[in-house]
């Protein structure tokens, strides 16, 4: 499965970048928007969660029910990451115009129609506590009550045209998404009135139940080291032929769930390797979890490199899943039309270049066995070993 052909890419100063692509599916049009985040402090992160919770409840332009109706029963999905916000809309084939109008309503000209402050509080709490990966690596939450000004200020700080990359995938050839968006953008307001009432949001997150052991690697930008680190991550943590599965599950019997991901950060990415166990005795000592992986790496042969490359091909060409990149707080990226459109927008926002599957995979192939082992050893040796949850 190869990402769809990019038909047009419109980049202009002070405007959102729009990428148009040919569809992989004839039935739906996927509109994906990535909003790059400025630096946010803890309170602003929480204020953004409150703003997103309110956006899902409807905007002045469209109520929640109208959005769902226009999107043929779907709701907009909005995910907050450390470095960006993902807005995901899946509309009927002839619905590109409606989807872009909804996107515009969510990101500007808003003025949220709040049904109740209590509902917003509940939604914010639920949103902050939601998601497998965010629960595992939840940073500390500021428990103090937010003010309307904080939420409004954060919303205005985050949703700026110049920080947005939009992919429209699957629109019929008669529709011109770039022009549609640009005509909406002409009504972009520098500042919107947001809330009718002051939200009062106090949220603390429950810790994740079972014990998890995590190896948190150092953050890094994609650059020249990226491909080797990615192949090493896959060799270590993706699939049942991986070191994590072979060692932590099959040899040691410590865990049923073990996986890896690249958490997005403002600096780039942070590789993490996680093993979750229900047996507290397994996490009394953490260092053996690292040693077990180092032992595995020592035993790697050309077969392990071939498996990692095969798995990478499977992820990006055959759609087998288990990508190290996150698609939401709950799951890693798939090759669904929406996720493919999102990857195009995200990769452009993150690296300034268009994601091309073949070129991307050929970069991974340039890592030989010795480089793979050395990179994996560095990743594991230099990682912070942490106990997560109870």
């Amino acid at each position, binding site marked *: 499965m190869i990402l769809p052909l990019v038909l047009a890419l419109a980049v202009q100063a002070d405007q959102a970048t729009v990428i148009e692509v040919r569809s992989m599916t004839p039935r739906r049009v996927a509109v994906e928007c990535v909003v790059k985040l400025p630096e946010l402090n803890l309170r602003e992160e929480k204020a953004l969660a409150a703003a997103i919770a309110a956006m899902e409840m409807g905007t002045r332009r469209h109520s929640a029910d109208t959005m769902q109706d226009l999107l043929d029963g779907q709701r907009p999905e909005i995910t907050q990451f450390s470095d960006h916000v993902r807005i995901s809309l899946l509309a009927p084939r002839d619905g590109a115009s409606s989807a872009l109008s909804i996107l515009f309503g969510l990101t500007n000209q808003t003025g949220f129609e709040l049904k109740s402050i209590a509902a917003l509080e509940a939604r914010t709490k*639920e949103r902050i506590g939601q998601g497998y990966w965010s629960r595992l690596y939840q940073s500390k939450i500021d428990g103090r009550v937010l003010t309307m000004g904080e939420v409004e200020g954060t919303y205005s700080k985050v949703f700026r045209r110049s920080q947005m990359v939009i992919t429209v995938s699957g629109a019929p050839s008669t529709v011109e998404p770039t022009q549609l968006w640009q005509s909406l953008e002409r009504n972009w307001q520098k500042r919107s009135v947001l809330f009718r009432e002051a939200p009062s949001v106090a949220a603390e997150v429950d810790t994740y139940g079972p014990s998890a052991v995590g190896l948190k690697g150092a953050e890094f930008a994609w650059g020249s080291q990226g491909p080797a680190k990615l192949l090493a991550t896959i060799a270590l943590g993706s699939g049942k*032929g991986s070191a994590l599965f072979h060692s932590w599950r099959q040899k040691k019997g410590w865990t049923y*769930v073990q996986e890896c991901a690249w958490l997005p950060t403002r600096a780039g990415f942070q590789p993490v390797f996680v093993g979750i166990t*229900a047996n507290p005795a397994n996490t009394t000592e953490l260092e053996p979890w690292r040693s077990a992986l180092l032992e595995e790496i020592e035993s790697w042969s050309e077969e392990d490199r071939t498996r990692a490359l095969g798995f990478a091909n499977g992820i990006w060409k*055959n759609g087998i899943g*288990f990508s190290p990149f996150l698609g939401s707080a709950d799951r890693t990226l798939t090759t669904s039309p929406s996720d493919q459109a999102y990857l195009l927008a995200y990769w452009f926002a993150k690296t300034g270049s268009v994601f091309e599957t073949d070129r991307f995979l050929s970069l991974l192939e340039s890592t030989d066995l010795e480089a793979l082992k050395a990179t994996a050893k560095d990743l594991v040796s230099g990682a912070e070993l942490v106990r997560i949850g109870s």
Partner: protein
Amino acid sequence: MERLPAADYVSVQIWINSASFPDRFATHGYRHLLEHFQAKGFDNRLDYRLESKGMLLDAETTRDAIKFGVRCQPSQVKQAIQAIGDVLRPRLVTKANIEVEANIIREEIALRAGASQLSADAWLKAYGESGLDPYGNPDVLAKAEPVELQNTWVEMTSPENLALVIAGNVEIDPTTELAKELLGTRKAVSSITVKADRTGINDAVARKGSAIAAKVASFREPGTAARIAAGLAIANLVPASYFQYGPSNVPGLVLVGSDEKSINWVDIVVKENPDDHFSVAKKLVDRWVEIQTTDPARVAALRGRLLAQSPSLRPETLLENLRTVTVPQFREAWKSFNIEVRP
């Protein structure tokens, strides 16, 4: 065999009917344990071989069947069918292997998602022992004997219990020939034939989240389609909720739930007017059907789980019923959500 010309991958699945060996308290989870062992392949390296070629094996044990599936490209179908042949070959495991794998299943059960736990509770509440969840009881599994497991596998995988389904962009005739060549020589063994059914009422308490369920008859009944529509509409009223239904020819459940414990599902069902939600339900059903009928893995799963029960069962009956749900059927179905599972 289902040809999906627009699909970008092929799903090859084998479904093994479990009517001859349903979960009971004394053997609770044997099928799940066998699934774990057989998925490793004859040399414990099946995953490794498939992943090296960009293919993926997945396995699942449901109340009605065990499934193994391989996701591949059209040019890899032969290797995928060979992999299925590999997982079907009986393996003799040791007592030590059983102890290790029972512990891994213990971990799996402890870490299962809220939706899965809640679903198990609802099934137990609705159907008692015949609704036992397929994960199993690790204490029972640890006592299983290797030969007992091997014999069970041989009986379960007798040809009349198997349904091989291939969905994707494949040519039907040559692929059928290939499947016959690779798997068609299997010999029948005498099989225990116990008709799968579910009866009885037990009680259960949810340990995570909250849910509400409706009992359904066979997937072929119009009332089942109406309950699917109602379930989707009820789930739509609660953010981040989930919906579960696995088509079967025997009675089952449509369940909606949430990880939130505080949701009063009974209140929602009683207070909301179903007529207000019929229109959105139709859209949600269309989307559900679209997903089930375009993605090769889902297409193969929908066909496989029914074919394994009987070669005459076809999902088209359900899909047609879903398209023609009426308002009165929908109202009736809405009211049937009365099995509440909460702490």
